[in-house]
């Protein structure tokens, strides 16, 4: 579908920035990409196909996203690593009442602290994005990261 270039640019910026914030471990900035009542779900492809509701991570609103990150910072222990998100160009499916439905492929490569990299996962972001007015930043109303790699290697601690 045709989308005006300013809208497309704001969508692309949100997709790229949100990925880069995770890779740079700037998780406060990553959380700011979500609206207050935004959902964030990491969904195994098999549950999606079977229409089962359980995710790997399932946050129904931003308060719960914040709880996830708080636990990550203060309670959880995980494999020390760096993430690299490689994202495709977003594909805008529709635009309704200022909210764009967008699909973007992603791939995450994890690198450990001694410099060995492995493909961690691939999948598709199914996003609902409030595009906002010209000077405003676009924000996620909903982000569902559908994991093709749903047999998760080792563990999944940092957001996808």
């Amino acid at each position: 579908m045709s989308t005006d270039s300013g809208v497309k640019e704001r969508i692309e910026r949100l997709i790229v920035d949100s990925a880069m914030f995770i890779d740079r471990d700037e998780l406060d900035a990553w959380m700011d990409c979500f609206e207050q009542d935004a959902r964030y779900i990491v969904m195994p492809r098999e549950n999606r196909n079977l229409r089962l509701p359980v995710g790997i991570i399932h946050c129904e609103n931003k308060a719960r996203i914040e709880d996830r990150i708080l636990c990550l910072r203060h309670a959880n222990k995980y494999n020390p690593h760096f993430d690299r998100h490689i994202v495709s160009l977003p594909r805008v499916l529709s635009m309704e009442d200022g909210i764009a439905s967008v699909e973007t492929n992603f791939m995450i490569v994890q690198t450990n602290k001694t410099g060995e990299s492995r493909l961690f996962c691939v999948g598709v972001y199914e996003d609902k994005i409030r595009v906002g007015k010209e000077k405003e930043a676009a924000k996620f109303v909903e982000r569902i990261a559908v994991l093709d790699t749903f047999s998760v290697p080792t563990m999944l601690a940092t957001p996808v």
Partner: protein
Amino acid sequence: MNSGKSGAGVDWERNDYSRLPFGLYHDPGIYRTEQEKIFRGPVWSVLGLEAEIPEPGDYRVTHIGDVPVVFNRDPGGGINAFVNRCAHRGAEIVREPYGNVQDFTCIYHAWCYTHRGDLVGVPFVKGVQGKGGMPADFDMGSHGLRKLRIATFNGLIFGTFSADTEPIEQYLGSMLVENVGEILGRPIRLLGYQRQRIYANWKMYMENVRDAYHASLLHEFNRTFGLSRLTQTSGGHMDERHRHAMLFQYKGSDGDTEAKKAYKDDRVQRSEYMTLNDSSLVQAVKENKSGVSTRIISIFPNGVVHQIANCLGMRRVRTRGPAELEIEFVLFGYADDDEAMTAHRVNQANMVGPAGLISMEDGEALELVQRATAPNPDGSAIIEMGGTGALMNLDTRVNEMPVRGFWSYYSELMGIEPAGAIR
């Protein structure tokens, strides 16, 4: 304590499994023997839940050890399981992980089997135009798939390769019959799957789910929100043969102040306790008689049934060689849950699985043991929390008894018990 030297080549050091030779995790010969004597031995392996195959024709693929097994519901409603390997040339027959079929047909030469695993179709068995075909004495009736014996208990499906495995309720013992029976005592509704692949030996995970001691030390979330603390009314109990175990606790049976002091005195707590925006994640709606808030019930050799607050699940563990395992978490609620209760269980599923707030660390901990012991498997682990010698049930989680229990039954089946072994 006897020296437990004569363990068919395994140097146990002691007869009570309080020393564990690291070589048992890594020896490829041990792994091959396990497949035969444990997984194809006189045990009931967890296959799945009846709720996974509700309709006639439904099937799902799982594994016993590293052998792919298909369990299914036949058109008459009966439950069956067979090894996913064509009797003809050994090809994998079922290629989709789940589905609903009229029959099972191998794509290679189109040999066709029923849900029970009986061979009912061999294309051109009599040849074409009088030429070729199978010899006249070829008997389809004796070339079915390798079938497993099946037992079910409250909707949980078990399979065994052995003709000698005892009846299922006797195998489980009274503690599991009571507790698994209660958790699966009502019709359930599947909520989803989570899978985790850990690059470590499978037995480390079966120890982990019997290790009452680590739960609040490794999993800081447990300690912080009082889901599991060593200061609570809790314990690690076993069946009479000590092969299965149940770790349990009662949330709210200790005070935050008392708990904080205990962990601070033992220099575990690193920082102040945090609080959540939304504490419903850690709240339990009471739904069992005793008010027990967590039960991790391990079923020898490959299964777990858990209740963590209102997060209910079954786990099946697949071996993938000596250095890799896969855990499949199958989460469920009850068929009569209302929308709010289902949402609560979906929210609490955040606690388990590969990204589980109280389980993700297990993946890392097991790989740490794998990495540090595989290159040089000399030496042994220490398993003494809760005491050495005879195995017994303790009402504390400062306790590794059920881990020794696992090894005692494992060694009996493997034929590697130390001299004068305790059981």
